[in-house]
């Protein structure tokens, strides 16, 4: 644990924060979902990562949540912070009021309290959408690599930055009605591989993967995904662009 400095109010007192956490343990038949409140003293630079770990260390060792990198790059800690999907590790308490509500991401299978099984969902989506480079020509690893335009590489990386945190799914209107919808995370991946000259699939192939209501035509364009994406991926543009391309294939 990092040593902390308590944040002082103008009158010299640190704020007392109340974290209301939605608790439920599916492994316990007697468990009923409920909000449990924890009070802690705010510290300088306190993130929800620090706050939750402090609660678990000092108040309630049974509290379940997921953190890995605690630096905003691995996507483990997405949860609803005051109802909005976001990465807990990089959410500073100073940006929030004195009462903070935390709940697990919806849609995903609940493991316990704030921990959900995004990994299982994401692997399933990867298998369904075949999110890997399709290319039957083996790479000669002794030879000088195939060239790529520098701007193409940067454009691919722009979409490759997705961290599969699940915020877009939690913020998606369509998913609420259609569980099988691939969501912005899935559509963004198709856009990413479509852009990659190393992938030999064409639009007809991609149409087979996302040319239906579970794919790009299911999106109702509410684009909550775009608003909550912690990596600020251009999801709105990508979905719109992909829909146009898939519509063209569909019309042929």
């Amino acid at each position, binding site marked *: *644990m*990092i040593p902390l*400095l308590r944040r002082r109010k103008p009158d010299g007192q640190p704020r007392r924060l109340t974290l209301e956490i939605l608790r439920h*343990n*599916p*492994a316990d038949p007697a468990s009923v979902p409920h909000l449990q409140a924890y009070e802690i003293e705010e510290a*300088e*630079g306190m*993130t929800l990562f620090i706050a939750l770990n402090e609660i*678990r*260390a000092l108040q309630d*060792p*049974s*509290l*379940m949540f997921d*953190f*890995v*990198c*605690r*630096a*905003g*790059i*691995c*996507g*483990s800690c997405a949860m609803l912070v005051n109802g909005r999907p976001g990465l807990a590790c*990089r959410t*500073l308490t100073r940006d929030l009021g004195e009462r903070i509500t935390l709940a697990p991401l919806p849609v995903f299978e609940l*493991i316990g309290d704030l921990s959900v*099984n995004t*990994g*299982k969902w*994401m*692997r399933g989506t*990867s298998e369904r959408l*075949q*999110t*890997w*480079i399709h290319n039957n020509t083996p*790479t*000669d*690893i*002794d*030879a*000088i*690599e*195939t*060239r*790529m*335009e*520098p701007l193409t*590489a*940067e454009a691919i*990386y722009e979409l*490759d*930055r997705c*961290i*599969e945190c699940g915020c877009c799914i939690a913020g998606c209107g369509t998913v609420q009605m259609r569980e099988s919808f691939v969501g912005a995370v899935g559509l963004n991946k198709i856009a990413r591989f479509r852009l*990659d000259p*190393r*992938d030999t699939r064409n639009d007809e192939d991609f149409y087979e993967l996302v040319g239906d209501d579970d794919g790009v035509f299911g999106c109702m364009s509410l684009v909550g995904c775009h608003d909550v994406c912690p990596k600020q991926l251009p999801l709105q543009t990508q979905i719109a662009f992909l829909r146009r391309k898939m519509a063209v294939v569909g019309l042929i």
Partner: protein
Amino acid sequence: METIHTDVLVIGGGLAGLRAALAARKRGNSVLILSLVPPKRSHSAAAQGGMQASLGNTTKGAGDNEDVHFQDTVRGSDWGNDQDVARMFVHTAPKAVRELAGWGVPWNRVQAGDREAIIDNQRVTLSEPEEAHGLITARDFGGTKKWRTCYVSDGTGHAMLYAVSDQTIAEGIPVHERMEAVSLIHDGLRCYGAIVRNLIDGKLVAYIARATCIATGGFGRIYQSTTNAVINEGIGAAIALETGVVPLGNMEAVQFHPTAIFPAGILVTEGCRGDGGLLRDVDGHRFMPDYEPEKKELASRDVVSRRMEAHIRSGKGAKNRFGEHLWLDITQLGAQHIDRKLREVKEICHYFLGIDPTKQWIPVRPAQHYSMGGIRTNAHGAAYGLSGLFACGEAACWDLHGFNRLGGNSVAETVVSGMIVGEAIADFCTSSAGDMSLSTALLRECADKARAEFSAITDNHGPENPAALLAAMQAIMTDKVGIVRHGDQLAEAVKELTELAARSRQVGLRTHRPGANPELTLAWRLQKMLKLAICVAHGARQRTESRGAHFREDYPQRNDAEWLKRTLAYWTDPKQVVPSLHYEALDIRRMELPPGWRGYGARDAIEHPETARRMDQIETIKAQFANADRHSVQHALMPFRHLLPAHLRGDNARPGEPV
């Protein structure tokens, strides 16, 4: 108990484990990966700045090749590494980058023509030739003679991890997520898989495998101040140690990264300094040239971290409410460069510090970053002491890095060692050594033993709190087994850690939650982590010299005469309180590059009597091969290609050096 059978069990779903799994799968084995977290969330994703491979595509990389990369790596290790392994690695790294390009990693590419860059605080124009346009580019990193670090902005590890993970999905390799290996199934001679705990329902499962590969990463979380992810607790290394027959190598060799943001300890990449960033003190003075006129901010990490701590001790640290730190200044790189090449750094500064690094300096202080030590293996990744057990990546002491790893060599090691060790695993499985017969009695004994570890904790109603003991251990490690070490402090650390270990067996759980109780998980891991911490502290105390990242104030010289050897820590008897240390000599007579000055840092090493003799020999060989190509000279000095799988032995083509 549920039992699952597979040819190959890979423990750890980071880059090293995934790549080894792919190699073994492609040779026809059934492979199963266990991972604490979904593989794409592994700590490999945190590698920012890039991966070293001597492609030599850029102007500042011209003339680079395996020889230069080899020498940089050996010097970086302070002659503590295995030179055969270093050769295997530098030879395979270009192949790994190219393979990853084929799998979709969007490596940044060379743009032909002029561009502005900052080198040593000077604005210069670099000109890239037309024929290099579109090839994989590289940036500068510490301790290297050439710009060799291939990158994807500053999300290199992320891009690599996603590409390799997607390949394992394409191959249909199952990953059992949220599973933790809690002990190895073994009889003291052969490993038969692992007893594994499901972190969702808390149940134990037996995974029986002909070959088991540990790729669980490092153990940075034994320190208070670390850049490591919270899952880097070293449990894979600990369960190998607990077999009693597998040693951990060089556990005292712990790297501290110069630029962790202060106080949170989150990494900002070495690429910041590689791209022209400077370190400044409380007065705004750029102090590194005063200490290191040759490489300045771009000396190796051990040297820069040590100089930074010394500068703070001399009273030149900047102060904020949390303590003392120094400044990393990347403002001169400009917003356009930072927005494209250092965007994760910008995000981290924004979210965790509330500052804009295009305009403001970043508060930094060295923090634990990398474990050079780990499960000791041979050049093929086979663990010492237990047939059928392999290790690769940071969990292993393969020993590419010796006593200090170069930036960009770890994420490179993950994939390269995965390529090599995965083949060795497949070879093992096709050989008679890969046959096995496991008695149900042994399986039952191993399962009972694992179960007993957990029930000993749940049945104990002692006074101790595991979270408090964990925090105490982390404080001891950072305070007394850190960047600057002293025999007296190390002795205190060993004593205090052994006391904590005794107390860790007296915990009383406050919660009894059905399923995987996080408090029980913590209490169980704590005992393992303490063993690792004791290996680090005890090994550091016994090593009465300074080498790489292991710096002893009371023994400040590198002592090749007495300490050119690798520490092997064994925990033979569960009742032992400190490990038994054995030492494995490094043989100068076989070295391609005998010990000398690194090109930065101290120059006062105590020489080994063999060094001069080997130097003469090398001169003679070089004279004999005066007209031969560089590969022939290298082969005459220290042949290594026979150690590589056949398909990785070929020469690497590069511009100006076609095959």
